[in-house]
């Protein structure tokens, strides 16, 4: 029973990682930037949910605001931080991203206080159901539903709509797509908009799950998301999804069986390093 429970709980975490990691993969696939500041967007989403929900009493309003604000923040990050330095070697945007992340984290500390905010009421946190003997609270359920719906929605968008096809064309061959009349700048905005909205929602859900929102909450999740996108083979969306779920499960087993040697956060990276030694291009990456 423990075995099944570990797998299921691991998959729940995997869904959360997926929402975070897909945004990073989208940015990497398009611009070859390790978008570390994604963590800032994640925390921003969480702060929007908690402040709006506490002020209005409506979680739905909180998530709506978080969705819009994080999408706008993502577009602003692209325009202000990345666009001016696109031609530079990869080291430059990476350092800019680290700098931006630190600035965002410190800004949250100044605006919202260093000690974090709890939800006034968190009905999803206390309500539980136990299908098949495994207990979930509603936040975990919401996390799974949100990630499946949003990622499926994105898959349909990318596969079926004109804008989605333009996006895929630009990722595959930016120059060719441009000469066929696709505006690469609009594709980039779209990319940041969608990825950041996902991260904002994920942040809000994690805030609910911990019943607590703090300035540094984005850090660890996004470092793990970076590990995931490398694990999945940088830029591969399918690889990222698989790697997210695998990491969730590996972590949940690791916290039980390796508890005396490593803490939870180290296990994911340990797994990453082992995989990279065997497959340097990641799980689904091409050489």
């Amino acid at each position, binding site marked *: 029973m423990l075995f099944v429970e570990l797998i299921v709980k691991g998959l729940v975490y995997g869904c959360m990682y997926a929402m975070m990691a897909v945004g990073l993969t989208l940015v990497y696939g398009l611009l070859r930037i390790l978008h570390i500041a994604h963590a800032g967007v994640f925390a921003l989403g969480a702060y929007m949910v908690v402040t709006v929900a506490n002020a209005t009493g409506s979680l739905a309003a909180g998530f709506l605001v978080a969705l819009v604000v994080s999408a706008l923040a993502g577009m602003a990050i692209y325009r202000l931080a990345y666009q001016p330095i696109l031609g530079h070697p990869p080291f430059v945007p990476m350092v800019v991203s680290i700098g931006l992340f*630190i*600035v965002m984290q410190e800004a949250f500390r100044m605006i919202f206080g260093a000690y974090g905010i709890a939800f006034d009421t968190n009905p999803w946190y206390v309500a539980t159901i136990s299908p098949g003997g495994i207990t979930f609270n509603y936040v975990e359920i919401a996390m799974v539903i949100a990630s499946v719906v949003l990622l499926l929605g994105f898959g349909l968008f990318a596969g079926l709509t004109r804008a989605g096809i333009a996006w895929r064309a630009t990722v595959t061959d930016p120059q060719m797509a441009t000469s066929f009349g696709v505006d690469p700048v609009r594709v980039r905005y779209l990319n940041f908009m969608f990825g950041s909205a996902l991260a904002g929602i994920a942040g809000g859900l994690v805030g609910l799950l911990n019943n607590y929102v703090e300035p540094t909450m984005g850090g660890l999740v996004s470092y793990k998301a970076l590990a995931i996108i490398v694990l999945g083979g940088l830029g591969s969306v399918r690889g990222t999804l698989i790697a997210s779920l695998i990491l969730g499960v590996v972590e949940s087993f690791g916290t039980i069986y390796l508890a005396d040697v490593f803490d939870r*956060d180290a296990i994911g990276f340990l797994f990453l*390093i082992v995989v990279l030694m065997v497959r340097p291009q990641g799980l689904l990456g091409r050489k």
Partner: protein
Amino acid sequence: MSAYIASLVSVIGINMILALGLNIISGFCGQVSLGHAAFYGIGAYTAAYLCKLGVPLPLTLLAGTIMAGAIGIVVGLTSLRVRDDFLAVTTMGIGFVFLGFVRKQKWLGGELGISGIPGSGLDPVVYAGLILLFAAAVIVFSLWLKRSWMGFTFDAVADDEDAARTVGVNVSTYKLTAFGIGTALAGLAGGLYIYFARIILPDTFDFVQSIAILTMVVIGGTGSVWGVVAATIGLTLLPEVSRAAADYRLLIFGAMLMLVMRFSPGGLAGLATMLKRRKAAPKEVP
């Protein structure tokens, strides 16, 4: 020299050794590392553990240096398999693996770290002088390394790995050497740190510390010895000079990283070269 100045000088010296070590890996040899603090930690933990067993100072420093360097070479092996962005994330992961390991080890004090480390037996002022002496030696070594054959080869590897391999450079050996030297220096800094701080906590060696070291290198100008030295002094003194700068230290670091990369990716050193060229320019125009 008062005790305050002595402690300030000690911190500057230790940071300088750390930054110059990373500069050899990232600046000279072009290998990104986001986990430099882990090797600082390995040196500190090794030295502190031995020190508590009664091992004298020179041996603890040596052990810390060798331990960090040896593990650094093992980590450097990853750089043979993965490049650029993959390497950045891998080295970042090494930092978390180190912290995650140390936190769970009862014999290393777990979350509480190692406290009650005996002092160096030297006056704080003399000890600060010793740290400074080590830092000066590292500066001289870096300057020499940069102009040596090995330095040129590092340059070639940093510039274009495949081209370097084509002309017969054994890229793997040089990468491992750079990792070995850079991380060994971090270990030395860790050893020096314990006699100064007398207590070590796992969180001293976290990702933020790695980023702080990276900031010094990047703002100074990756690859430039004097640039890194200047940036280390400036960034270490900044929080001491003004109370506001101390409160917003990380904010300032972050903003500087963004601005420097945006306007002068070569850091202070790049800026200096640019100004020199601009000054020289009118003479070239007839």
